[in-house]
């Protein structure tokens, strides 16, 4: 039994590395994802992950590290969304949706000029969790630390923002400033997480564990802890499935996270009905 559950991780350094990296990513996603879910910013998380692809593609083109490009791409996306929402409030959904498509298409066009186009694209979109290096893990640890520190410092204005940006303003915490800080935190998390599960799926890892936690937790602190627990479980189950069932690593993790969410959603409904 123990061998079944832990064997692959004990015998293989790359599996242990993937687990360590995945756990750290879960930590960042738990902290940031909790605020994203509470504020209803899910679509921003999705947007940022679309911005990463062209950023990474351009970075690869110039021989720069992918992370640098990913960071630039998400920043460009933040500015793009800000620009679009300022210009038109009515059709901002349409405009933002087109911004996603544009960034994704731009990324694919840039990557398509590369010799290993299909492979590169797959690796960016779906991640390569089994190929994480210790340097990557260190980066993820740094990000988790940074994100946790910022969340601890800004916990009051963030909480107020979740409740009402107006109340944040009148309480002496400028909503715009803290909103920007939160966007930067989301961007940072997406940038360090996409290597694990890829840009298409990182959004799932950001949202699903936090959304699961929101089903049961009533305080921000407990929500983050639960999100961490669900995220870590998804990483572990995903990696184990990838090993035992020969499935893609990143996608298995994302699938585990979403399955956990829907299972919890259903059980909450059943519990509520039984109580009634």
């Amino acid at each position, binding site marked *: 039994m123990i061998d079944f559950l832990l064997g692959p991780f004990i015998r293989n350094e790359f599996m242990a590395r993937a687990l360590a990296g995945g756990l750290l990513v879960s930590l960042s996603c738990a902290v940031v994802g909790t605020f994203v879910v509470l504020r209803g910013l899910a679509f921003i998380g999705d947007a940022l992950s679309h911005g990463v692809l062209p950023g990474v593609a351009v970075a690869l083109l110039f021989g720069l590290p992918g992370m640098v490009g990913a960071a630039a791409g998400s920043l460009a996306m933040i500015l793009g969304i800000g620009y679009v929402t300022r210009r038109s409030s009515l059709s901002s959904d349409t405009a933002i949706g087109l911004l996603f498509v544009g960034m994704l298409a731009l990324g694919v066009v840039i990557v398509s000029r590369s010799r290993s186009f299909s492979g590169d694209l797959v690796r960016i979109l779906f991640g390569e969790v089994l190929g994480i290096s210790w340097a990557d893990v260190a980066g993820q640890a740094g990000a988790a630390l940074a994100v946790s520190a910022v969340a601890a410092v800004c916990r009051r204005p963030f*909480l107020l923002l979740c409740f009402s940006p107006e109340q944040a*303003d009148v*309480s*002496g*915490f400028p909503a715009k400033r803290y909103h920007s800080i939160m966007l930067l935190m989301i961007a940072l998390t997406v940038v360090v997480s996409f290597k694990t599960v890829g840009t298409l799926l990182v959004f799932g890892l950001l949202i699903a564990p936090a959304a699961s936690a929101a089903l049961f937790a009533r*305080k921000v602190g407990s929500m983050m802890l639960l999100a961490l627990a669900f995220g870590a479980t998804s990483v572990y189950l995903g990696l184990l499935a990838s090993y035992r069932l020969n499935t893609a690593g990143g996608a298995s993790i994302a699938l585990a996270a979403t399955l956990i969410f829907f299972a919890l959603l259903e059980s909450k409904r059943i519990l509520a009905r039984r109580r009634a």
Partner: protein
Amino acid sequence: MSSPNLIEARGLSAGYGGESILSGLDFSLRPGQTLALVGANGSGKTTLLKAIAGLLPPLAGELQVLGAAPLGSPSRVAYLGQFHPSGFALPLRVAEIVRMGRFSAHGLFGKLKKEDDEAVREAIAELGLADIADMPLNALSGGQRQRVFIAQALARRAELLLLDEPEANLDGTARATTRRLFDEAVSRGASAVIATHDIEAAAACDYTMLLARRLVAYGASAEVLRTEALLDTFGLVGRAEGDKLVVLGREHGHDCHE
């Protein structure tokens, strides 16, 4: 220029996106006084409240709150916005939400002390929320949520209360409780500006401002809340019969939508 007035406005113009909804307003408010803003939807009540709260920059004129620009002393002002039933409902506990009212007194790092917990507990008890203090906001009814928001505003123990239709969504008992609590706050020296549709509530305030995208009337409530002025404010056509107001119809094209 410091003055004992809590609010001081001269030639104030307020509005959104460069377009002014109200202009040329002159008024002031002293400690312990209450001002009612009365008008139809879109008449500028919310705009004016937001300007005083510091959420909208004045388009012209001067506005001083607590002797400085608006938002100068966040811990001394409480703003309660209009209730939106379809607003984003959090899964956070009632007690947590009310507790947020104490943040403005401590900034990012100041530690919350015993008196903060006191204020929160009191506010919860006074709004009759003690039984549901542990329940998440998104499991409450509209009326319960509004009481939570009022509790949060009260927990601030502010000198200046800015309330936008605080009694909407409340039943009779809750309404009476709310009114009593505001009265108590005022008797302790606070001031309030209340936007309301309710003529009775306005009558209970010291001063009333009638708004219809312009200043229809401003002065002591007893004088201002007269039939003709009210008709003008709401665009109604009618006549007074002793105590009662008989409404005959609506003025064409009066309704303004914000």
